[in-house]
């Protein structure tokens, strides 16, 4: 994926409002539909399924719940997966800051999955299958993946290409994509996902990202994730922002 | 992988990585190439039998590589390093020089009733060489060898005109159900063979003047035979029993037959230096 020749350097990122997310799962499904992720094999579990976007439930006191959409956090400064891939199947697109996966080149060694602290990478444990004639509804902008390769969220980079093309068609700079929106952001009915260029200080996303209510997961690992989370609820913040200090009692398994 | 492949970048990382990788490949290829070339050269130069003998000699345990001067007590503990080729040994001439007399009249009987005539020279692989008046030599199995092989059958005898190499197999026998290769003590052209079984002899026209410095003769033969009986004994039983043999008694005529079947092959190989 060669970036267009331009000096425009965007750093696409997202701010997830944890107070708005109601865990409906629309983003999860939209992501799978847009990116031709197959339905699960009958034997798949939550640990062997493929869901580029995975909504985690956080438990608060008194039965309160919060939901945390987890996708590839699009690490920026130190990308754990890109540096470990033995065959350059993970690519950092310099024009957009998007960490992409090249499934045709992936060997399936899964080292990147071990390296990723966010568990945002998924392995095709089964041959993909679409029951009925659902394969008719596959998105031609994304190629299907074979068994035995790793895949993950890439902020629907095909939509970036399409948005650039649309912008160019209206006489704009082909490197700029003003109406670029990933599928999950488009699908979220609660408006919990805000997407845009973090490099543009005027953008809503970068202003939200800088607000004191915003934080990143595992910030101290220094991955420079481009997905930010925000919440005004202290218990939510406490549940996700920091690694908890050692527990009082030992966890028994 | 190559400078022209898409991912290649001319940076220190790539240069160091691929520099090392191609160096390793080159080293492996060079070793293989060199080994192959040298092997071809060896084959062309006919060094195969020498190398084979050396390889076999290398495998012999130290006690089986005893120097002939150790056998006679001249150099206790001395181990041969020259694959029993005394002509190449730097020390051999000096030992020879030290010997006062070179006994020529040797009794025909060795220890334990072995028949080891003095007109013969003995190879460490139990082949004898008898110089014939016409300048040729007769090569055959010595008495210990004959007793070991017993009722043997000659599987392969050299054809007249063939060139025998020193320490290379001259004969193949089948004895006690096992195959034994008898190493040739001399280098020369085969004139003919005679005799059957263990009594087979080969008439050889030695190449060039007959040089027998590497063969045992004289006093050494008895000591060596004694040592060989001890070795045989050691191969079969506790070492302590060895010396008891020297006290008397006569070796069984069909020695091979008493060796336990499962040990025959090993014993024959050891005794004939055919490993």
């Amino acid at each position, binding site marked *: 994926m060669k970036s267009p020749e331009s000096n425009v350097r965007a750093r696409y990122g997202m701010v997830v409002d944890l107070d708005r997310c*109601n*865990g*409906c*799962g*629309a983003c*999860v*499904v*939209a992501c*799978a*539909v*847009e990116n*031709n*992720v197959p*339905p*699960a*094999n*009958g034997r*798949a*579990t*939550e640990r*062997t*399924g*493929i*869901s580029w976007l*995975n*909504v985690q*439930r956080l438990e608060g006191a008194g*039965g*309160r*719940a919060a*939901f945390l959409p987890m996708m590839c956090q699009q690490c920026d400064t130190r990308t754990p997966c890109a540096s470990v891939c033995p065959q350059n199947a993970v690519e950092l697109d310099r024009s957009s800051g998007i960490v992409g996966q090249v*499934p*045709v*080149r992936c060997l399936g060694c899964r080292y990147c999955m071990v390296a990723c602290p966010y568990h945002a990478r998924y392995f095709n444990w089964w*041959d*993909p299958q*679409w*029951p*009925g*004639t*659902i*394969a*008719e*509804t*596959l*998105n*031609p*902008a994304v*190629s*299907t*993946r*074979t068994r035995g390769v790793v895949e993950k969220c890439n902020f629907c980079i095909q939509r970036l290409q399409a948005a650039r093309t649309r912008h160019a068609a209206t006489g704009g700079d082909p490197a700029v994509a003003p109406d670029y929106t990933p599928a999950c952001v488009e*699908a*979220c*009915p*609660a*408006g919990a996902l805000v997407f845009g260029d973090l490099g543009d200080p005027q953008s809503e996303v970068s202003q939200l990202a800088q607000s004191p209510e915003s934080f990143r997961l595992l910030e101290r690992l220094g991955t420079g994730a481009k997905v930010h989370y925000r919440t005004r609820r202290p218990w939510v913040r406490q549940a996700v922002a920091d690694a908890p200090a050692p527990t009082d009692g030992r966890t028994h398994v | 992988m*190559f400078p*022209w*492949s898409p991912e290649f970048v001319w940076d220190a990382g790539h240069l160091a990585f691929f520099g090392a990788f191609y160096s390793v490949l080159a080293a492996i290829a060079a070793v293989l190439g060199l080994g192959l070339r040298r092997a071809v050269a060896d084959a062309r130069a006919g060094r195969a039998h020498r190398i084979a003998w050396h390889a076999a000699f290398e495998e012999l345990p130290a006690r089986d590589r005893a120097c002939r001067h150790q056998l006679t007590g001249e150099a206790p503990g001395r181990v041969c390093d020259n694959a029993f080729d005394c002509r190449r040994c730097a020390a051999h001439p000096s030992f020879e020089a030290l010997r006062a007399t070179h006994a020529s009249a040797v009794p025909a009987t060795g220890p334990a009733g072995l028949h080891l005539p003095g007109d013969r020279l003995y190879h460490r692989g139990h082949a004898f060489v008898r110089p014939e008046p016409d300048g040729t030599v007769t090569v055959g199995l010595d008495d210990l060898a004959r007793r070991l092989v017993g009722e043997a059958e000659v599987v392969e005898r050299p054809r007249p005109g063939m060139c025998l190499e020193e320490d290379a197999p001259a004969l193949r026998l089948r004895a006690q159900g096992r195959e034994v290769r008898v190493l040739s003590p001399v280098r020369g052209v085969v004139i003919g063979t005679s005799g059957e079984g263990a009594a087979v002899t080969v008439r050889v026209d030695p190449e060039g003047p007959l040089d027998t410095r590497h063969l045992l003769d004289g006093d050494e033969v008895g000591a060596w035979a004694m040592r060989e009986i001890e070795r045989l004994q050691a191969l079969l039983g506790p070492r302590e029993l060895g010396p008891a043999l020297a006290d008397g008694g006569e070796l069984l005529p069909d020695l091979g037959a008493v060796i336990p079947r499962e040990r025959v092959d090993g014993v024959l190989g050891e005794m004939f230096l055919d490993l």
Partner: protein
Amino acid sequence: MTPLTRRDVLFGLGGGIAGTLLSPLPWTVLDDVAIWTQHRRALPIPRDGETSVRPVACTSCPAGCSLRVRSVAGRPVFVSGEASHPLGGGACPFGLTLHHLAHHPLRLTTPVRLDAHGTPTRVALGAAVAAAAGALRAASRSGRAVLVLDQRPGRAVSRAFRELLAAVPYGLYATPDGEGATLQVLSGAAGGPLGIDLEHTRTLLSFGAPVLEGWGRPGRMLALRDRLRIVQLDAWRSPTAGLADEWLAIRPGSEGPLALALANVLVGEGLARTPAAELRDLLASFPPERVEPLAGLPASAIETLARSLAAQGPTVAIGGGDPGGGPLPLDAERAIAWLDVVLGSVGRAGGLVARGSLPDDGTAPLAPETSLAEVPDGDVRLLVIAAGDSGRALPWSALGRKLAPQALVVSLSPFRCGLTARADLVVPSPAPLEGHEEILPTADACVMSYAVTAPLLPPCAESVEPTRFLAELARAAGLGVPSDGTHAERLQRRAAAIFASHRGRVLVRGDEGFREEAPADAGAFWQALLEGGCWVDDSRAARAVAAPALPSPAAVAGWLRAEPARSDLPLVSFAARGAAGGTPPSPILTKLYQETALRPSVATIALHPQTARERGLVDGREMRVVSAAGRLDARLRCDPTLPPGRAAMAAGPDPAALHEQDAAPARGALALGVVEPDLTWRGTRVAITEA
């Protein structure tokens, strides 16, 4: 010329190989091989083409969310919610997979006969119609009922059904009880439909209604979420309970007494208008202390809640039940309705307000609307299950008990699942996106609205519009009705009637969201509707409400009776709207039910860890779950958020069935549900033992 030596040949070969290696050729080939390995297993390669975006409406449940479908080369590939829709934007996962349904493995494309195992055999439409007409004539002869179950009443096709049933000696038109049950109780008293003025409501007290996860028009709730205080009274930590401002865990089945106890406090503390004497007498039996053990809530919590309802008004109390748990008993709904009356919420801004109706577009007599529960058992000779999904679960036994011997069940659903799996004949109507659809307001809406979507896909050649089936059935049975006209023509007639009424506003889709427009004539109005526009009625004046019926004395006595200690556990059954209805979920929903832990699957039964411990049951093990209606195996999931002393299980969907080509036997809570005569199954109790 010198002859070639072997050396020359070798040199030539070596040079050739080295030269080839230095050229890009072998490396390009290698790269291509890399690509080939990707496709060695014949992966589908979608065709590319022209992209277009069209507005449609979701038909998976009554919410009728407005959607946008992106198609490539005429094939829909992506669905998203119409964010700026005036009736509420956004869509749920079921709507986002609407375009999969026409391709669903359980889709039927021709009329079929189903055997006892649900295996389909193709039949001709004529034969199917003849069989249905025969059953209809037999019903007329024997005085048995012809029943149409319409899960989406109010559509033009509903009218066609009712016209037909009116012409039959004993025709019943039934709709299942749904999420608007409380409103229905009050509407019955008010003499016209009511809606909730949520835009001005401050507190929404929900008795187990999933108000934050697919209730009413979800987009409306999402838009109002920040302004609304939501108090959830629920037997389990439902998604709504987890997200609500307050969740009070109540004992299953205690909704009725709890509503009365809240009213008791309000009346007792003078926080509400003084009710009629008969209600006062009833309330006197339900002081908070009395209800405390029934509801499992401290009396003080009931009092605090009641005070806050009064203080933070306007407050609306609603019941309706969970889509997977079935309706609340009518008496509980009456109690909740009375709470609304006591709170003074009826007929005031921010409370329950009147909603208009669509103008009439026909003159033929209509069969009256009845509740399915009112249909006598064993009386139905011909049952027609209309296409259209309420998005709520309905166990087959609720219908099965109504059937007479030799009854014929005809389903018009395009999917061989849910109730349709038990039908004798299926005459499939067009799948979603293949036909014209009407969108009517949801139960909560306080204004009437109307929208129509045009087909996006060409209908399958042998699918049958229900209107056409009805026409052929009437012809074969020798009935004069329903009046002729295709489905589209009926809708157009309806639109014309709306246009002619000169009521409301027309909102059309523009580049910058929706804007009001005045269509020149009925044709322009119809066109505006087809292009994603909608008609919104004017607001109505508040309607004064007469007193609704009181809970029956039998129910009240039942509530007050102390329950004996039992070893089996009440079962809390639940499902997201659309998950356990008649429309099969897209297989891609394994993402929610199987591949992530987001939603519990029917394959698990939840217990509080302490409840499990008391029974010696180990988390993660396979359990045998037995109710009076059935038994099944499920894995135990210890869930500390589930209050002790009850079991919780999803009613659907079954992720294992999402892969199947064949309709699997029902798993999950629906297979266990013990259906009462009032067609509720909330009283189901289960015994759990290790399998």
